């Protein structure tokens, strides 16, 4: 075991703060963890901040303004391990849905003085700007995975978290397939495990907040959904959610929407 305290930083970009909250949600583990981990930069939790370098930097949020692009580059330089945390940081987040629209239109629709608002053309996953060492997926990230990740870093191991399709975990858990038994469209077959299959557990289809699984074939799922009677635009909307901007889903969406960019 490593004895020196791990210097951890948490940075927020365009996001809802839900992933950071998951760190604070480790109520039981939080106090034990602080024996081994020092949050040297975690504004939501503490006024006190220490400059880098950091052993691990967790990045929450997508990169959507020029300032954020700057900042994330600086964070990268100061961090040994950079972790993109959550759907925004790994896939652009729900706000990446604006990437299909023209930025000018979007700004004008929202702000009376659009020229004041600085935004990048796209809401981007962190990996589009700097090198990301690990991804922790989900909207929000899973507390259990976060904890496992930190523990693995603490023992000096290259963290490993399974990235197979959610279906496996869902069925291990004993859920009944909502697609087969209820005809509910579900992204589970192409989405990465990690959430504990909560949507099917609560009677609905997976809406994809963990993004594509390691070898996802969303195109096959899309054609099956069309085969059982879903309209193209509805299939597209299903993929166009919290991780719609992920490369694999984006491709399917664009095909279904007929060559939109």
């Amino acid at each position: 075991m490593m004895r020196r305290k791990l210097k951890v930083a948490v940075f927020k970009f365009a996001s809802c703060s839900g992933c950071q909250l998951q760190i604070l949600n480790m109520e039981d583990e939080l106090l034990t963890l602080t024996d081994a981990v020092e949050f040297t930069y975690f504004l939501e939790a503490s006024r006190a901040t220490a400059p880098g370098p950091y052993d691990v930097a967790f990045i929450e949020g997508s990169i959507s303004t020029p300032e954020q692009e700057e900042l994330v580059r600086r964070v990268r330089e100061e961090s040994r391990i950079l972790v993109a945390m959550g759907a925004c940081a790994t896939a652009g987040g729900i706000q990446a849905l604006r990437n299909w629209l023209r930025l000018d239109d979007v700004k004008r629709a929202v702000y009376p003085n659009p020229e004041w608002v600085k935004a990048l053309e796209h809401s981007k996953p962190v990996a589009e700007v700097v090198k990301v060492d690990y991804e922790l997926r989900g909207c929000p990230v899973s507390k259990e995975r976060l904890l496992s990740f930190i523990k693995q870093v603490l023992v000096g191991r290259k963290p490993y978290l399974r990235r197979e399709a959610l279906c496996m975990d869902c069925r291990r858990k004993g859920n009944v397939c909502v697609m087969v038994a209820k005809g509910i469209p579900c992204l589970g077959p192409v989405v990465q495990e990690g959430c504990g299959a909560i949507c099917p557990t609560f009677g609905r289809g997976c809406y994809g907040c963990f993004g594509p699984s390691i070898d996802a074939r969303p195109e096959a799922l899309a054609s099956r959904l069309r085969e059982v009677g879903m309209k193209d635009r509805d299939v597209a909307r299903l993929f166009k959610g919290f991780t719609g901007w992920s490369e694999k889903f984006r491709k399917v969406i664009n095909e279904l929407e007929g060559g939109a960019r």
Partner: protein
Amino acid sequence: MVSGGIYSGKFGELRKLFNALRLRGYRVIAPKLEDGVIRLKEVTSFDEVPYGWEDIQAPGKYSVREGGKHFRHGPDAPKRILYPPRLELFRLRPDWSVEYPKERFPPTALFAIKPCDLASISVMDRVQGGIGDPYYLALRKKLIIIVENCVEPGATCFCSTMGTGPEARDGFDIAYTRLDDNLVVFRPGSDLGVELLSELNIEPATDEVLRKYYDALKNASLKAKAPFELERLPDELELGLNSPVFKEVAERCFGCAGCNMVCPTCFCFDVIDEPELDGGAVRVRVWDGCFSYTYAEVAGGNFRKDLWARYRHWVLHKFAYWVRQFGVFGCVGCGRCITWCPAGIDLRETIKSVVEWVRSRGGG
């Protein structure tokens, strides 16, 4: 009195049998309707067993309706009970001493499972038989099995082709068959079965009942057929290793490994080693499946990086390799992988197509 033969009685005798198991202290696991699906769950009252309900199964589709005469099986196989999806194996303390999780192995009765599922247990027995999983073996030793023979197989069933149903041959304690609303045929398959049956109000089946019984099972047998024969199947499939069929089918496959999970005999597992903050570690076993991408992955590469290769491995394992490994087919014809495939892929069609491909090339 009851000895080895075939007996008949009224439906109410089943209730008595069920209660007798509970009285003897068994945890009874039986079909149970839950949220529109027949599950395999612990049941405390005979009335929970969904007699009077029927499931409707098709590739990628499942539903139930009330008023049907016969239920088959839902997504849960006995594997779920005997070989749990997630099991903590042990903990290592920082000094390398070993700590085992506390486990209890309650005496368990499987009630009203289907012959294909019974067959799956005997397949699992062979897999676990040699070196074996102690958890499985401990539970297995105390297991009582009451089988319900299938008078009406479902649309994805092919036990008759696989030789595992619709009538249970051996390995059960009692097999019963519901011939009509109030006529049930019983067969003991073990000393314990004989003992349990001797407590029931049943009598040796009359010729008429026997005729009905054999007719019903023969009819059922004609229904539960797949469009292929077992004879020479392992060899034919191996001749079809390079068949384009696998690639064609895999185009529709999501690679979700759902079939691995619902298959009553898929036994592959992964182990997850998790560090503990105190310097020790825990090892957990979880079900894995050959459809998962990382299944055949090593540090230097992936032996089956393409989905079609994984699909082919699964089919070949069940119908060819398994025979070479364990002397039986790995498939029991329950059809779960067909019903519960979200892509609606029909394994029977795949095998048929591969065999046709092999034969068209003069193989086989």
